């Protein structure tokens, strides 16, 4: 990759082969990375999980990763079909950097760190610095995504998305909710409603303030309603062929309420 910095980096192929089949991608120089052993598998080091860039959505969907980072598993399960999940990789989701990438809001909510390497060294890039725009990331030519580090947290996690059906759907709107009981923080990130995942910071702060941390973790209905409003306000959606901006803003509010209800007993609000 140092010799041919403009080569196409191909992992599962679920994004790039679509372009290649249309003749829209020059495949003269391709570096295939998904069978590189160092990029496969994962390691847990205390409260950090390091996921290799070539870990597939199918692998994220069950077993140890699903037990340690349940929201990431939920997101991975909503990607495409079994055939797609067997091929699509976590690193590929970051490489493509689509606004609708389903693992991305979860990684944003987890404050993930992206490990990047090149012939000249390694650097760690925080997720919010890695994703810089629509299908744009912070990689420079010659660099490769090698792994993603996420915290292993104690607390409920949810990932929810809206699309036209339950399978094979590109997100119209999505939301990840991550609770850290030890740190008493709540993190919410929205997908498909902006060029990159958006953290709903005001909503996060409100939930963390109002939640009954010392008890069973209940949340009252008024707070739930207010959180849904704050989440909708945080979205910066556009109109496109998958949905209107108004619909997307409404949808993330609904998803916020639904995620809170699943995560916290007693979280009420208007049925959604």
């Amino acid at each position: 990759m140092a010799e041919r910095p403009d080569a196409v980096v191909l992992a599962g192929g679920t994004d790039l082969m679509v372009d290649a089949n249309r003749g829209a991608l020059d495949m003269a120089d391709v570096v295939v990375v998904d069978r590189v052993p160092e990029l496969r598998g994962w390691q847990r080091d205390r409260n950090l999980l390091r996921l290799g860039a070539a870990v597939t959505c199918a692998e994220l969907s069950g077993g140890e990763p699903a037990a340690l980072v349940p929201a990431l598993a939920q997101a991975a399960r909503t990607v495409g079909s079994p055939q797609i999940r067997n091929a699509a990789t976590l690193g590929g989701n970051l490489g493509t950097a689509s606004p609708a990438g389903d693992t991305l809001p979860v990684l944003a909510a987890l404050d993930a760190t992206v490990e990047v390497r090149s012939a000249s060294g390694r650097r760690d890039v925080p997720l919010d610095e890695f994703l810089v725009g629509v299908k744009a990331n912070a990689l420079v030519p010659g660099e490769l995504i090698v792994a993603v580090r996420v915290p292993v947290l104690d607390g409920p996690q949810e990932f929810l998305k809206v699309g036209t059906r339950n399978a094979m759907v590109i997100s119209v709107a999505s939301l990840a909710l991550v609770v850290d009981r030890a740190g008493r923080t709540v993190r919410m990130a929205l997908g498909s409603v902006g060029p990159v995942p958006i953290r709903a910071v005001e909503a996060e702060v409100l939930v963390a303030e109002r939640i009954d941390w010392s008890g069973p973790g209940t949340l009252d209905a008024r707070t739930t309603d207010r959180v849904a409003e704050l989440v909708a306000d945080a979205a910066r959606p556009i109109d496109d062929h998958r949905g209107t901006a108004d619909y997307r803003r409404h949808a993330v509010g609904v998803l916020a309420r639904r995620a809170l209800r699943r995560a916290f007993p007693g979280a009420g609000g208007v049925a959604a």
Partner: protein
Amino acid sequence: MAGEVLSLTVNGRTREVADAHPGESLLYVLRERLGLAGAKNACEEGECGSCTVRVDGRLVCGCLVLAAAVDGSEVTTIEGLGVEGPDEAVELSDVQQAFLDAGAVQCGFCTPGLLMAIDDLLDRDPDPDDLVVREAISGNLCRCTGYGRILAAVELAGAVRRGGGGAQ
């Protein structure tokens, strides 16, 4: 990659491909270079599942696999799903027979992909509940049947496989 010989084990036989262009999908190589037209070519974007094959045991869309990337791999296509019966004749697998018995084939275009997906499912879980079946075939579009008889075929094939009378 141009000029390099690609070697694949397809349905148990070693096949060499000398004339593939860089960027060619596994589906293209199977159909156009190796003459295996069972896996169908429709959407070319992983949406329809009609090109479903197994690569090293993993169920994937052949159209999204770069052929050069799976050099040395074992590929199973619909042509390899049948089982050898007496006198070396190839017999239909349990899933194929179930599709016939249940009337799950109409135009037939999606059938190879569905058979591969259902074979993969029943390998992992010979007694799947309805939701698991629907999830397993969610990446295989059928525009004729409405899926009713396909679901019935899965039930039939599962019963055969659970009873030990199945193909594998």
